[in-house]
Structure formats: structure tokens, C-alpha cells
């Protein structure tokens, strides 16, 4: 008896929720970026689980999602380094130059 697709979807939803909690509660930018990676991985797991039902398109699309994740990590960490050089902090609630 193979494992039903819904099980994979539940695991992916749990990963997505954990990643969202990390994004909205943590202060450290590095951990927020890691939580975004968790969210993207949850989406990838959904895509691959559906590719078991509807053909290989989901696996091809998950490759594109991984490309996006790599680009996002590179640019996000570049922004983080540029910011850290100016303000010596990695906490998001101290990044308030545009707030008055």
C-alpha cells in the first residue's frame, strides 16, 4: 500500500507553517532567511508530491523554485552584509531607517 499523497501534503503544510512562524516571530535576519528557505522547501515537497499524480511537470517546476531560492539567498545575504556594515546589527526591528 503506497503512502497517500495527502500525507506528503500535510508534512509540507506543517513545514510551511513552521517557516511562517519563524518569519513573523524571529528578530535575526539570518534565521528569517532560513525560514524562507523552509517555506520554499515546503512548496517543493508539494510540487513533487503532485508530480506523482499528474506527471513530471511538478518536478521540473521544483527545479525552477530551487533556482529562485538560490538567487534569493544570494541577494538577501548581500543586502544583509551591506546593512551590517552600516549599522552593526542583524535584528529586523532595528532596521528602521525608513520609519518615522
Amino acid at each position, binding site marked *: *500500500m*503506497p*503512502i*497517500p*499523497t*495527502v*500525507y506528503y*501534503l*500535510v*508534512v509540507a*503544510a506543517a*513545514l*510551511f*507553517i*513552521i*517557516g*511562517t*512562524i*519563524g518569519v*513573523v*516571530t*524571529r528578530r*535575526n535576519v*539570518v*534565521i528569517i*532567511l*532560513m*525560514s524562507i528557505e*523552509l517555506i520554499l*522547501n515546503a512548496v*517543493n*515537497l508539494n510540487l*513533487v508530491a503532485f508530480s*506523482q*499524480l499528474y*506527471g*513530471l*511537470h511538478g*518536478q*521540473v517546476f*521544483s*527545479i*525552477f523554485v*530551487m*533556482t529562485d*531560492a*538560490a*538567487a*534569493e*539567498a*544570494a*541577494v538577501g*545575504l*548581500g543586502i*544583509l*552584509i*551591506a546593512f551590517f556594515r552600516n549599522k552593526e546589527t*542583524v*535584528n*529586523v526591528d532595528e532596521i528602521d531607517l525608513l520609519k518615522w
Partner: protein
Amino acid sequence: MLMNALPMLALFQTDMEPVAPRFFFYMLSGIALVSAIMVITRKNPVHSAISLIFTLLSLAGLYLMLYAPFVAGVQIILYAGGIMVLFLFVIMLVNLERNLKEEQFNRQWVVGILATLSLAALVAYVYVKGKSVFPDRVAQLPESLNVQQIAIGLYQNYMLPFEIASLLLLVAIVGAVVMAKKRI
């Protein structure tokens, strides 16, 4: 003309032996979820990064169980090997001792957790109500042809998105260099 080039193998079978016993599914998803929780609760970012590596590796195992060996390999090489090294480098660059003594969660954490749990309740409601939408039968995709079929998909059906992805990576490289360099 090319829309049918990606072979859609619809060998629906219900009594096929799974690729790995059910125990492995529970073990891998348990490791993935526990280390995902550790990612968002650890104080030291290095510990979070190592937990994230465990999550990524167990997700690669789940991809193998889903007959997706190419995606599993790309996951290990690109995520666990590439992106996580980048993360660890940046953690080493910006790590502060005083950061460990500070408050790790922001002021809105109660509201954030409540909002996210309501999202979780919505997802759970949808999955409980719509469980019959997802069919139980699974297409057994032949593993030996997986890489060839994904290559056919990438270079025929999804040729334009593939080129756009290469442009995106070029922009990301230039953007990261421009951001992180002191004077250009």
C-alpha cells in the same frame, strides 16, 4: 507541437509495492519537522543552519520516496552543498557575541503565532474536508528515465522559462556583488 513532448506515464496501479516501507516516511518527515522547529527556536544561528541541513537532507529522502531522484540529487547538491555554505559564511561574517544575549523574538510574537495558527487551522480544515479530492492511486514513474524526462521537459516544454532562469541567476550574481562590495 511540443506540448506533448513530455512523456506522461500514467501507469495507474494500486497494489504496487512502495519504494520504501512506511516507516521511512514517518522517520524522514519526523526528522524534517523536528529539525525545522529547531531552526526557528535555536538562539545560535549556526545551530539553526545545521538543523536546516538535517531538514533538507530528510526532504531529499522524501523526494526519493516520491520517485524523484533527480530532484533529490539537486536538493542535496544545491541546497545542502551550496546555499547552506553561503549561509554559514554570512553567519561567520556577521555573528555578534552580544546578539546571543539579546531577546530573540520580537514584540509581536504572540500575535504572529496566533495568526499563523489560524492559517494552520484553515489548511487543516481544507485537507480534512477535501481529502477525497486527492486520489489515492499513484502513478509509478519509472525512476531510470527520470533525468532524461526532466531534461526533455527543461529543454523542450519549458525552454523559455529555463532561459529566463539563467537571466535571473545572472541578475542575482550582479546584484549580490553590487550589494556586498564596498566601492564599485
